[in-house]
C-alpha cells in the first residue's frame, strides 16, 4: 500500500494554546480518509496544517513533521505544495468571476495561457465534479448565479483543475442540502481512483458512506485510526465508542 502523507509527532499551537498534540498517522494513496470528532477537537486545524494554510497567522506554529513525496512539507515553496495538495472549504467560495474563469484560475496563475489546454482542463474538471452537464452552455455566466451545491462542486472542479495529488475538504457539505450532499459524495467516490482525499466531517453517516479510513480526533489528540468499518462498527477505544453512540459530541 502506497503512503501519500506521513504525519509524525505533529503538534500545533495558536499562541500558547496547544491545538494538536503529537499526531502521527499515515494516509494511504487513492483512498478517502475521514476525520471525525467533536467541535474544537482540532480536525480543521489538522487539515489546514497539511497545506500550510495556517502559516498566514502570525501566532501559529507547529512541531513534528508531515512528509509528502519524501520531503517535509515545510521544505516546499508553499505555492508548490498547495498546487499538489488542493483544498475545498466549508462555505463554497467561488471567485466573483465566470464559471470558466473560476475553473482555470489555478492554471492561469501558473502562467498557462494556451486556450486549448485551458479549455480541455476546464471541461475535464467540470466533468469530474459532475457539473459539466449543468453548466456547459453558460460557462461565461457569473459563478454566483449557481446554487450552493453547484458552487461547491465548482470549487471542487477548480481544485481538480491544477491536478493535485491530494484533495483536502473541510466539512464541504455542512452548508448544503441533502441532495447536493449526495452529489458531492458521489463525486468524491469517483475521483478517488486518481486522487487521495482527506475529508473533515461532523457527520458520522457521511464517513460511513464514503470513507475507506476513519481517524477520530479528541481534544487535539488522535484517538483511533483504521479501516472505516472497524473504527465505526467496533472501535477499540472507549472514547470513540462514546462519541459514535452520542454520549457526547
Amino acid at each position, binding site marked *: 500500500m502506497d503512503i501519500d502523507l506521513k504525519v509524525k509527532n505533529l503538534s500545533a499551537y495558536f499562541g500558547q494554546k496547544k491545538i494538536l498534540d503529537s499526531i502521527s498517522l499515515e494516509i494511504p494513496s487513492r483512498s478517502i480518509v475521514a476525520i471525525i470528532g467533536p467541535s474544537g477537537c482540532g480536525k480543521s486545524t489538522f487539515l489546514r496544517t497539511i497545506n500550510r494554510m495556517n502559516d498566514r497567522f502570525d501566532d501559529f506554529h507547529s512541531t513534528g513533521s508531515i512528509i509528502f513525496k519524501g520531503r517535509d512539507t515545510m521544505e516546499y515553496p508553499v*505555492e508548490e505544495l*498547495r498546487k499538489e495538495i488542493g483544498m475545498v*472549504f466549508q462555505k463554497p*467560495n467561488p471567485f*466573483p*468571476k465566470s464559471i470558466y474563469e473560476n475553473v482555470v*484560475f*489555478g492554471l492561469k*496563475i501558473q502562467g498557462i495561457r494556451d486556450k486549448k489546454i485551458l479549455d480541455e482542463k476546464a471541461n475535464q474538471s467540470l466533468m469530474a465534479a459532475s457539473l459539466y452537464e449543468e453548466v456547459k452552455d453558460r460557462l461565461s455566466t457569473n459563478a*454566483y448565479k449557481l446554487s450552493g451545491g453547484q458552487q461547491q462542486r465548482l470549487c471542487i472542479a477548480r481544485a481538480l483543475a491544477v491536478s493535485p495529488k491530494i484533495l483536502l475538504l473541510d466539512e464541504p457539505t455542512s452548508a448544503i442540502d441533502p441532495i447536493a450532499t449526495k452529489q458531492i459524495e458521489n463525486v468524491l467516490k469517483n475521483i478517488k481512483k486518481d486522487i487521495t482525499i482527506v475529508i473533515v466531517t461532523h457527520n458520522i453517516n457521511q464517513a460511513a458512506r464514503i470513507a475507506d479510513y476513519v481517524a477520530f480526533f479528541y481534544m487535539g489528540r488522535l484517538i483511533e485510526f483504521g479501516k472505516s468499518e472497524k473504527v465505526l462498527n467496533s472501535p477499540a477505544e472507549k472514547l470513540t465508542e462514546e462519541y459514535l453512540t452520542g454520549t457526547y459530541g
Partner: protein
Amino acid sequence: MLKQRMLKQRIAFLILSIISIGILISMGSIFAIIFVNGFSVLNWNFLTSITSFDFKGMPHGGIGPAIVGTFMVTGLGLAFAVPVGVISGIFLSEYKNRGKLFNFLRMMVANLAGVPSVVHGLFGLAVFVVLFRFGFSILSSALTLSILALPIIIMTTENAMRDVPNELREGAFALGSKRWQSALMVVFPVSLPKVLTGIILASARIAGETAPILFTGATLYLAHFPTALNQQFMALPYTIYGLMTTSINIEASTNFAYGIAFVLIALITLMNITVMIFRSIKRKMEV
C-alpha cells in the same frame, strides 16, 4: 404601557424627521442660492471664452481658462496620486496588515489626511516650486494636490480591500496563488467599485481646493488658455476667491462668482454621477 411606548416611538420619529428635514433644507438652500444667483450668467460663452474686465471693474466674457486649468491640475494630480495611492492601499491591506510598521504607516497616513490644506500649499512651494525648480506652474500645483489626494485614496483602497471576505483570499491561496496574485486577480477586482468611489471623492476634494494651488501656480487672471505644464493657470475655486476679494467692483462680480460656483458644483456632481453609473453597471454585470 403600550400607549406610552407608542408615544415614545412617535416622539423619537418626530425628532428624527425634524433633523433630517433640517439637513435637507440647508443642503437644498445652498444649491438653490447658487443656482438662482449663478444661472443668470450661464451660457456657452461663459464656459468657453476668456475673462475680461471693463473700466468699472465689471467682469465680462467667460471662465474657459479656469475650467481648463481646474481640469488640468485635477487630472494631473490624480495621475500622480492614483497609482501611488492604490498600490500603497493594496500594500497596507494585503502585505503589511499588522505589526508596528503597519501601525506607524497607518498613523502617518491619517496624520497626512488631517494636515490643513494651506500647509500642503507651503510644502508644495518649498519642495516643488523651489527645491525641484518646477516653478510657479501647473506641474507644481498638480503635485501638491496629489499629496492632498493621496491619504484619501490610500485609506479608501485599504478599507475596500479589507472588506473583501477572507474566504476569497484563502480560495486563491489554496490553488497555489502567490500573495500578489490573490491581491490583484481576486481581491482588487472585488474592491474596485469602492476604490473608484474613493478616487472620485479625492478628485472632487482637490478640484475644489484653493490653498494648495495658491502658492504653487494658480493666478487670478490669465488672458489665454494654458498650453504647457510649466505655465501658471487659472482655477475655478481661486477665481471665485479673487473676484470676491480683489475685484474693484465686488458688487458686480458677485453674480460672476456664483456662476463659477455653479460650474464647480456641477462638475463635481457630474463626477459623482459617473461613479454611480459605473457602479450600477458593474453590479448588473455581476448578478
